């Protein structure tokens, strides 16, 4: 039928976005880009939640999404503050240089 989208397509899209987020996290060296990949992953998960909420015809999924957004906001604030502090100390945004927990 032309006017209906199978639910599995939404979930597949969510998986693709999540994988792209992981790719960004693994392959990029700039800390801020890594952070944005994290936000991308969170968005993918949000899409999943809303899809399942549609499937079960319940509003709970929306509420989870809401809380995820709140937490993402808090996390972004604090995370960026940490990045600022690290940058002040080391003057580099390269994630590989933040390795004093080595061994």
């Amino acid at each position, binding site marked *: 039928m032309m006017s209906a989208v199978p639910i599995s397509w939404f979930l597949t899209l969510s998986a693709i976005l999540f994988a792209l987020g*992981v790719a960004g996290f693994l392959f990029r060296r700039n800390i801020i880009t890594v952070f944005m990949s994290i936000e991308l992953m969170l968005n993918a998960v949000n899409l999943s939640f809303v899809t399942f909420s549609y499937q079960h015809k319940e509003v709970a999924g929306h509420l989870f999404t809401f809380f995820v957004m709140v937490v993402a906001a808090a996390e972004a604030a604090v995370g960026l503050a940490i990045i600022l502090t690290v940058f002040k100390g080391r003057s580099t945004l390269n*994630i590989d240089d933040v*390795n004093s927990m080595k061994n």
Partner: protein
Amino acid sequence: MQLWLIPTLPLAGFLINGIFGRRFPKSLVTTVAISSVVLSFLWVLHTINAMGDLNTPRAEHYFTWIQSGAINIGCDFLVDRLTIVMLLVVTGIGSLIHIYSIGYMAHEHGPNFGGYYRFFAYLNLFMFFMLVLVLGASFLLLFVGWEGVGLCSYLLIGFYFDKKVATDAGNKAFIVNRIGDFGFSLAMFYIFKNFGSLDFDKVFHQAASAPEWVLTTIGLLLMVGACGKSAQIPLYVWLPDAMAGPTPVSALIHAATMVTAGVYMTARSWVIFTHAPGAMDVIAIIGIATAFMAATIGLAQNDIKKVFAYSTVSQLGYMFVGIGSGAFSAGIYHLVTHAFFKALLFLGAGSVIHALSGEQDIRNMGGLRKKIPITFWTMVCAWVAISGVPPFSGFFSKDAILLAAYGHSPAIYWIGVVTAGMTAFYVSRAMFMTFFGSYRGTAHPHESPAVMWVPLAVLAALSLVGGWLFPIPAFLKAMFPAVEGAENPMLMYISVFAGLAGIALAYLMYVLKPGMADSLAETLKAPYNLIYNKYFVDEIYSATVVRPLVGGSRIVLWKGVDAGLIDGIVNGVGARCRDVGSVLRLLQSGSIRSYATWVLFGSVALLLAMGLYGGLPR
């Protein structure tokens, strides 16, 4: 009847002297030690008196020691005729030797009067254990005393613990004894398995109806224990070395009491042995072989104590010949008379050594009979007794044994006669070289104090008259089965003749013609070397048993198994953990991206697991 007082009095002496003796003045230590033993002796006399009819054994039960399933072992003491004989010997001669020790140990060097209190404490402890051994009414209680006297023997042999000779001898005694104890333990296990109990009355009651091979096995295993404790072949090697201890110790433990424990034990188990003739034959053969061999070694020794030590081994062999020939009372008879004259010989030797301020080599003695007359005359009494000269005590007991041996096997009789001749010879040799001729040494001999020669005198009297004063076979006839001894007076004359011949030969070689002994030794150099070196038995044991065992322990068990295998495993586990850890450590690279990669890897693994096993709809 309060039998428990008999061993407990010396035990109290041990505790008091052992714990507090360090602070006591010498006189107090002496009083405690001597009184405990003398009181024990008096109590023995009282017990005999209180027993009345001696034919019924009296038992006293004190408490249940072990109670577990089928095992019920109580602490019981038993008194019958055999016990009385042993008690009198142990406490009587023990008291005499304690008194003698006052004088002998009076001038020791070192702190606390040279360990004076320690000596008497150990001696009292020994008395306690020996009395427990003799009074015990079960094999296990006997074994407690058995082990205890072994311990005290070790402590007393190694009394001069700063001398390696003494401590080595103590170790040797204890270890060789242990081998015998192992045989004894096996015997006890087997007895328990077959008869369900270790009490003498129960075991002997059932033994009469047990199959012969069972009794033979038990008998042989018990004999292994007796070989260890009573210094028979092949476990006699500790006794000559034990002479490193003080002389009263040699007299008490290694002549009169501890070494006779094996004889006592076999006599006590006569029911088992009379139904196992095979074991009896073995005992007789071991006894006569030991008697002969030890006598030959004694011919060539130059240390006066060693001569008497080998003599003890030899006489113990005689006792076992008596036991093995079925004449249990003859064996016990010889035990008693031997206690008299051997203790006297040792104490006399101690007196000589004391007089010469420590000299023990008879080549450096001579002509002492004028200088220390009391010692000389008392030792003469022992000399004639051990040589079997009638009518002294040794003659009666040795004759009883030889007669019984002839009835059992004439070959044993003839070897016994030759051994008697050798016994007379070497004791005479020692006496002649020590007391006759002219003095060859450098010390100033002086007579011992009264506290030393009074016990010597008492023992001398006993050696002379003890034979017909204490007719043991008649006393024990009610207990042991009678043996048809061949009543052949010819045998008696032959054995007496052998003894006199030995004395005469020694007189010839050492008094009339002093150089004859040395020239004889020169001509017969090979046999002389053999017996002078004790047939190299110690060396053989060392090479075949001791060194392989020690080497095996060191190389295989210590370096191989303990250090290599066990430590290897334990250390290896630790090392492997460390290795695993050092690999896992590389995970902590500090790089966030590598952590993320690992997380991804983990989640992929989880997804795979979920897919394969998770129960997704197929």
